[in-house]
Structure formats: structure tokens, C-alpha cells
């Protein structure tokens, strides 16, 4: 299971890298979103995938899985959700003011 997860993370990271290296703003933003999913999976995998019972009070007799990674991931998801949403709005505003979604034309004049 861990091997599969690591492979999946690798695929996600390479897809994200490909997207981030493009010049289109939306693609870059999608790339960062996929990148954050990859790292969430990494946290989940690295702490051990399902080593025991569910970490719930009702069923706590047997050894249960470490619940902390889930908490970390939930927090990280909230943050990456907020950041992605912000960047999307920002990109939209940039499209409105600059009429462009291409990083090539967003480079800015050198030190006007």
C-alpha cells in the first residue's frame, strides 16, 4: 500500500511540476493545488497507513491508528483551500486589469 501511495505522490508531484512550469496563470495555480494534494498524501503515508483500528472513542479497545496526521492534513487542507481560493480571485483580478493570463506579459518592465 505504501509503495502505491509513494508512486501516486510521485506522479502528482511531476504533474504539478509540469503545470507550474507553464506560462499560463491558471495552469500554475492548478499546479500548486495538485502539489498541495501530493504533500497531504505524503503526510498520510509517512506516518503509516492504517496500522490499527479507527481512532474513535467508541472503538478504542484495540491499538488504533495515529490520528495526528489526519489533524495535520485537515489543517493543511483548510489552509491550501484558502490560499488557492485567494490566488484564483487574484488571478481573475489580474486578468481584468492586465487583460492577460500569461506570465510572459506579466513580467513587468524592468525598474520603471
Amino acid at each position, binding site marked *: 500500500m505504501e509503495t502505491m501511495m509513494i508512486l501516486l505522490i510521485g506522479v502528482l508531484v511531476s504533474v504539478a511540476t509540469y503545470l507550474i512550469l507553464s506560462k499560463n496563470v491558471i495552469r500554475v495555480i492548478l499546479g*500548486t493545488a495538485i502539489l498541495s494534494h501530493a504533500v497531504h498524501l505524503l*503526510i498520510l503515508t509517512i506516518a503509516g497507513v492504517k496500522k490499527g483500528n479507527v481512532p474513535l472513542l467508541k472503538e478504542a479497545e484495540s491499538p488504533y491508528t495515529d490520528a495526528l496526521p489526519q489533524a495535520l492534513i485537515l*489543517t*493543511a487542507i483548510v489552509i491550501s483551500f484558502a*490560499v488557492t481560493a*485567494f*490566488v484564483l480571485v487574484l488571478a481573475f483580478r489580474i486578468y481584468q486589469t492586465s487583460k492577460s493570463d500569461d506570465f510572459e506579459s506579466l513580467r513587468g518592465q524592468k525598474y520603471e
Partner: protein
Amino acid sequence: MNNLVVMPLVVPIMIGIVLVFLKNHIRVQRALSLITMLSLIFISIVLLENIQASGIMRLDFGGWLPPYGISFVADSFAILLVLIASIVTLICLIYAYSSIGERHEKMYFYPFVLFMIAGVNGSFMTGDIFNLFVCFEVMLLASYALIALGGNKKQLRESLKYVLINVLASWFFLVALAFLYGTLGTLNMAHLSVRVAEEGQDALLTTISLLFLVVFALKAGLLLFFWLPGSYSVPPTAVAALFGALLTKVGIYALIRMFTLVFYHKPEVTHILIEGMSVVTIIAGCLGAIAYKDLRQVVAYNVVIGVGFVLMGLGVATDSSLQGSIYYLMHDMIAKAMLFLIVGTMINLTGEKRFDRMSGLIRHYPLFGWLFFIVMISLAGIPPFSGFVGKILIGQGLIEAESYVVLAIAFFSSVVVLYSLLRVFLQAIFGETSVSIGDEKPLPKGQLIPILLLACCTFGLGFGAEGFSSFVEDATKTIVNPEIYIQAVLEK
């Protein structure tokens, strides 16, 4: 049960939320944010006194004991920075009253500033490395909003780059956290320190520490400062001053904390690398500071030099160099805020961005001209201003560590700082003026007074260094001896 410890985080957040409801009552917003910052200064002074009296204070959120719960730890180092950050924010807010404009004020300017200071304070005080990530993100989200506030074309363009760089840095932060948790199974900083000491800092842990180095270097502008000059030159003056004074400093704080508390076992790898990076940073910063004629670029590269200088002290990691780093960090927050405010005011007064198109400002604004002189010699490290103590102590540390080349570079950078600003001083402040008396744009008192206050702070910090020394020595003691911190956090 030290609930006072969490106040620097909670008070600004709650007041910031209240300010959201008061969107159209600008006067109330101004008054409330002012009161908040004043109370933060008061709280941090009380905390400092308490720490001197009874040692490091700790608060476990929800009563969950460390290393299981999240805790806030207040030691002298963190609280000194919280104090200075609060003072600088207070002064920048006063500057903003007369400069930021009603449109910004109605676009939630004050709430965002308060959220940012909450994130900054949280980053200084947290005892849990995942919580450090969260506080970083709170601070960054607020700063994203502040940098894009106003929304002109150039600002939006630069803020997109700033956001994307930081998203990537946060990603590396999470990767490093994942590996750290996978290897050591804990995220509490004191517990991490214990675990690293038990396991020994092997190759894997050193690699993880280097990952953290990359993350924090990106945030602090150590070597990886390519994003800094662009982003710090677009927002309004008061915001730029806050950024220049606070944001890079949080990265520096995180570096000092991580590499003195947790990853201090392999200085021949990590600390040498930090030393090398800071030397390159200083050299590159010096080149930038001399090369540009755009005032905001000159100032941004001065920030870079400051970052390199503070981290030189961490690189050699002797007692006196770390003490110097703390002094210089405090000085740099005040002096950089002052420099940003002065330069912003100059650009505002003349309508020009390049200093070779200004001249003779001192004839119309004599006090303002001399304030520029003060910040210049303060940054160059001339007594009795605040830069002196820090520079001398870092220099002493470098001599103890016998790194004479680094020492030469460090002190040469002071000369370059002096030169880069003296050039501006002679050209823009001195010199003949083309505007006749009476035709000049008036300089609002609301912009002059904050700069004057900062000048008083840099003078006070330099002249009254003796008064601060007990706090700074306590902070250094905690940094140099991780056991004190560990014991304070992990005791039941």
C-alpha cells in the same frame, strides 16, 4: 495556567474581527487598533518581567500537556521580538492614519494588519512546529491581502508572484514536516530537540534540517531573496514598512530557533552552510544597494544585507555572536521600518522614485532631513544608535570563532550600507533645490511624528542597551542552553 501568554495572538484576532463589523466607522477602527497595539506592548512588558522573575512561561491549549497538545512558550527571546514588533506596528499604524487613504481603510486595512501581527506574534511564541506553519500561514494570508490591497495593475502583478513563491515555500515546509514526523514521531519543538539528541543527528535528519533551512531561507530572504525587491516595492508605504520590518524577521527567528534548539548537533554541515549563505547574501545585497537608483530597490537590498548580517551570528553560534544577533534583530526591525517610512515619504513628497531626480529636501524639511541622517548612521552601526551593540557583539563572536574573512566582509558591508545611503543623502537631502520656499508640498505632521518616534526608539535601544542587557542575556542563555527551554516545556 498562564493565559497571558496567548494574548499577543488572540487579542489582535478578536479585535480584528470586531473591526470587520465596523467597516465604515474609520475613526473607531483607528482608535481600536491603536488601543490593541498599546495593550500588546503592555502585555509583552508584563510577560518579560514575569519571565525574569519566574522563568519561561508555558500555556497548554485546552489543558493538553506537551508533547501531545499544542503549547505556547514565552521565553525572553520570543517576547523581546513580540515587544519590538508591537512597537513597530503601532508606529506604522500611526503613519498609516495620514497616508493610507480612506479607500484602503474601508477595504479592511486595519483588520488585515491586526491579523498579520497575530500571525507574527504566534510564530514567535509557538512551541509546536506545525503550529509554526499555521501561524506563518495566518501571517502570509494577511500579507497577501495587504500587498494586493488597492489593486492597481503593478501591485496585482507583483502580489501574484509573491503569493506563488510563498505557496511553494509552504509546500516545502509541509514536506519537511512530514519527514520530520515520520522520523521522530513528534512535532513539539522541545520534544523534537530531545528526540534528535537521543537518536543522534544522522544523515536523514541533517537532510531534513537542510529542507527547513531552504524553507526559512526563502521566507527570511537569506540567499533566496530574488522575490524580495519586487514585492516590497509595490505596496503603500506603511504596508511596505511593516513587511520590511516584520516578515523577513519571522523567517530569521524560525532559523535561529530551529538551529539552536533542534538541529545543533552538526554545525560543520548546517551552520557552515548558513554562514556561507549569509556571506553571499551580504555581498549580493551590497551590490544591489549600490547598483540601483530607484530608492525602493536601494531600501529592499538594505533589508537583504540586514538579513545576512543577523544570520552570520547564527552561523558561528558562539555566545556573543548569538547575543549580537538578538540585538541586531531588534535594531533591524526598528531601523528598517524607519528607513521604509522615510523613503516612502520622500517618494510621496517629490513624486519621483529615483533619488537622482530629487534634491535639496533638507531646505524645506530640515527635521526630516536629519532623521534620514539618523537612520543612516544607525544602520551603519555608529554609536549611540542601536546598530552599534549588535554589530560589535557579532564581530566579537566572529573573532572568537576565528573567521576573519567573514568578519572583514561583515564590516565592509557596513561601509557599503553607509555609502549607499550617503549617496542618497548627499543627492536628495542636501544639494540645491529647484522648488522655491513656499512652493513645497507640505509634510503632514502625522507622517513626521512616527518617523521621529522610530528615531527615538533606535536611540533608546542604542543608548539604553544597558537596560535591555539583562533581557537579552536571558534570551541568549536560553538559546545557548537548549536544556532550559526543554525543561520548561516538558515539565509537568
